[in-house]
């Protein structure tokens, strides 16, 4: 039985056990109802970290108004793109000393996953991330947070290649023990440029194209400072939308041959780091919606069992603990992140295979074993799975492996076993 199925049955049994308590019943019913909703992703961060901008960028439309501090949680249901799964985005009030406990509570109750935005990596409020995951089930599975350096352009001083150096900074941080224990990954994104790129309008493209057509010695002084660029009203509006980095990047891209609005939009998406962020959200969150949903439901169940202990719920508690301790899905998710971020290093081809086997390219058996969905048949899959299991068992026997690699190999073996016996 998969984690989702186990959790579903646990929730239903809890509903029976707590039939006489209206409060517990309402709570459990809410979790049951949430079970088949899209993944709820909360965008969290300190004031002016770019929460609303990132929400807009992910949504692909201007749903949230940036710069206006929200006092409540606001929900936006978005479809990231046609091929991607649905996502419920949650824009949150800024995290600071006053609001923290309320925000944390809201996130713990409502969100399945968290994007933690920071301006600079130093701002990383580890205490906040720890508070979000300060729950027995959450601690056992820190698989729901992504760190985002949300103003990556400023890290690079607004240069056209700012995102490159921001990537380097992110790479350093995703391996640091403090953040990596709490976040699956750390990614840079130039929020304004990304948002503008996704919501690029025709008139804006024309203005940008006109700017790019100016001779270099005329354009460069304009792009030197925000003050200079904003002297003209139309340009000021453009600056407001794109930021200086966005304008610089867009004009450079047009000059280098981005013809047409769609092409520029696509390039901006890539150059602002939003593409990677969306990939990561898909890889870590939406692809594993069932696991995250199960995790949220288990947390909800644990709350009920803890707040209203009763003899009938005793076996449920034991089973909950067993489920959390034995949930292989969480370990797979951690391993996917570890392989992605380089926290675990395996030989090149093995790393790729491990990533595939633990579900990095999709959770279905055929995707894990590297088959096209159409040609996959039962015996062939099983044969391949047994082969992979042998290879990995052999590899895990290597006495020269480090502790991290050995653990990774153990996780892969467990996945292979599951594939071979399914």
């Amino acid at each position, binding site marked *: 039985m998969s984690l989702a199925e186990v959790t579903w049955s646990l929730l239903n049994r809890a509903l029976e056990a707590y039939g006489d308590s209206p409060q517990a019943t309402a709570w459990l019913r809410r979790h049951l109802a949430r079970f088949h909703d899209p993944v709820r992703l909360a965008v969290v961060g300190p004031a002016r970290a770019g929460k609303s901008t990132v929400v807009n960028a992910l949504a692909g439309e201007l749903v949230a108004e940036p710069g206006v501090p929200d006092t409540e949680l606001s929900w936006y249901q978005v479809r990231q793109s046609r091929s991607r799964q649905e996502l419920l985005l949650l824009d949150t009030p800024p995290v600071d000393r006053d609001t923290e406990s309320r925000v944390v509570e809201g996130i713990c109750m409502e969100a399945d996953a968290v994007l933690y935005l920071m301006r*600079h990596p*130093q701002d990383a409020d580890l205490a906040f991330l720890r508070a979000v995951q300060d729950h027995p089930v959450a601690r056992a599975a820190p698989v729901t947070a992504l760190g985002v350096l949300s103003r990556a352009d400023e890290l690079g001083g607004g240069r056209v290649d700012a995102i490159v150096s921001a990537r380097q900074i992110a790479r350093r941080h995703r391996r640091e023990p403090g953040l990596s224990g709490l976040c699956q990954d750390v990614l840079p994104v130039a929020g304004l440029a990304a948002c503008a790129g996704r919501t690029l309008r025709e008139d804006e493209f024309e203005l940008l194209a006109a700017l790019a057509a100016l001779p270099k010695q005329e354009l460069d002084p304009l792009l030197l400072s925000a003050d200079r660029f904003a002297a003209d009203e139309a340009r000021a509006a453009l600056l407001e939308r794109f930021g200086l980095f966005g304008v610089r990047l867009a004009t450079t891209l047009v000059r280098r041959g981005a013809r047409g609005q769609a092409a520029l939009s696509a390039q901006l998406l890539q150059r602002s780091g939003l593409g990677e962020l969306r990939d990561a959200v898909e890889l870590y969150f939406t692809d594993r919606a069932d696991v995250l949903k199960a995790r949220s439901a288990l947390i909800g169940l644990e709350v009920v069992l803890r707040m209203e202990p009763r003899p009938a719920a005793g076996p449920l508690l034991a089973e909950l603990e067993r489920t959390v301790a034995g949930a292989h899905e969480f370990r797979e998710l951690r391993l996917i992140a570890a392989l992605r971020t380089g926290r675990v290093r395996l030989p090149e081809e093995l790393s790729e295979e491990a990533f595939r086997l633990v579900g990095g390219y999709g959770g279905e058996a055929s995707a894990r074993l590297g088959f096209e969905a159409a040609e996959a048949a039962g015996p062939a899959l099983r044969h391949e799975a047994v082969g992979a299991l042998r290879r990995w068992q052999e590899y895990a026997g290597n006495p020269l492996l480090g502790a991290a690699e050995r653990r990774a190999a153990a996780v892969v073996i467990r996945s292979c076993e599951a594939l071979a016996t399914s």
Partner: protein
Amino acid sequence: MASPWLDVLDDTIRACAAHERQDLVDRLRVRRAQLVEPRVRVLVFGEPSQGKSQLVNGLLNAPVCAVGDDLTTTAPVVIRHASEPVATLVTGGDDEARAIEGPGHRPVPIESAAARANADETVVRAEVGLPRELLAKGLTLIDTPPVGAPTARHTRNALAALQQADAALLVSDATKELSSSELDLLTRVCALCPTVVVVLTKIDMVPGWRRVAERNQAHLARGGLPVTVLPVSASLRLAAARAGDTALNEESGFGALVQYLHRDLIGHADLLRRRSVAALTRLTADQLTAPLRERLAAAKETDTDELTARWRAAGRKLEELQRESQRWQTLLSDEVADLVADLDFDLRDRTRRILREVDEYFEVADPAKDWDEFAEWMYENLRAVAETNSNWLLDRFEWIARKIARQVAPRGSGSLRERWLESTQLDDHVGELRRPAIERFGVGQKLFVGMRGSYSGLLMFGLATTLAGMSLINPISIGAGAAFGAKSVFEERGNRLKRRQSAARTAAHRYVDDFFLIYGKESKDTVRMIHRDLRDRCTAVAQELRVEITESAKRIKEVIDTETAQRTARVRELSKSIDELTSLRRRAQSLTAAGTVRGLTA
């Protein structure tokens, strides 16, 4: 000319030495040496990635400090004027214990000095000399590692450097308002180094920097920090320098910053010094005062309560002893009076019984025959009486002694329990019983008494018979004479026995009286003697106890007195030290009161 601030600083150093804070002395000496030099040290500090190094580069129009997108600066760079560009790395400096090599100055090419300093863990700072007009008047710029960076080394270095600055520039970029941590930092810095401005960097990047600057000014005002905000853009300044564009240079905002450095800082070097010294002295005085105050509070609170309580208890004990002594003395005399009465009665009773027996005895017995036996019996009986009586006396006394001992020394001081009674054994008071004079009824006396009785009988009957014609001496008269004579003798013997018995009784009575008198006297003497002895001993023990308690009370009192005296002395001493430091602090305060200058209102 000795400046007043120098005096204050020297006094501060002396105070530190007096309070045995060698660390502070060393730090202040270093600072003093710096202050005496005609330079103004300006520290550039701030949180990570705010553009501190770039600001310095912009000021100097030269890539002196290493700049990067991630954390770059880890070692401070000190830049001062020199006729030729020159750079050195300082390793293992003044108080850095972690240095592997000894203190050393290593010359390096100027372009790579900062980068090398950042790469090398052992480098304490890089020193760079540049031929710049800005520096020529004695301005020293110090670029510091970020405050609040994850690694402790950075923060420590930055804060250590702050103490040695005459003025400081807090660098904060225009992409956001001053954060609460930056405001906290600023408050802390103002205590260490009172001349601070906030430099708002990167104004080229954000369109809304004017609003940010206004907001920052408002934040500062709300935090009670009257600090100026100077917006600048280093990248515009560098671009202007490359292009030789004065308009662009004006836009970069560096003009105002340079003017501030020149006019307001270097122009008022003396004020800066006074302020630095004032802040330094204030800080040092506070640092010295805090432990003193704690000690003062501790000294005031020191507890002699327990000792005082013991002393009071001793006093109470003495009073109690006094009362007790009255009580047991009364008790003793009462007991002894009882005893005397009881003894007297007992003696009387016993002797009376003996006398009664004596009377009964001599109803029958003839003292002439049984005297010796009687004397023996009498003697034994009286002895027994004396013995019983005196034993009883001793027993009673022992009992009394115990009782009194419990009163006098309840804790069981053993001195009263001695067998002191042994020495008072009663002597033998029973004297010799004298034999009473006993008339013997001898043959001659019997004959004489018989003759006298027979004469009257003979005569009476002889005369009667004469009438009957017989002769005066005839058988009848002779017979009658003989009968009369015998009767006389018999009567006489009975009379004599009665007399003897009476004499014996009288003798016995007298004897017992004598015994009673003598023994009674002896017994009473003994009682008095023992009484006196017992009283003396009890008094002695009580006295001993009293002396003991008085002594211990005195000692406790002495301890309390000395402690109080010591404490008073300590409190006085500490108060004096605190007063001295307070006055030093006040003097430091007055240094800055001399006058304020526009732009330096910190």
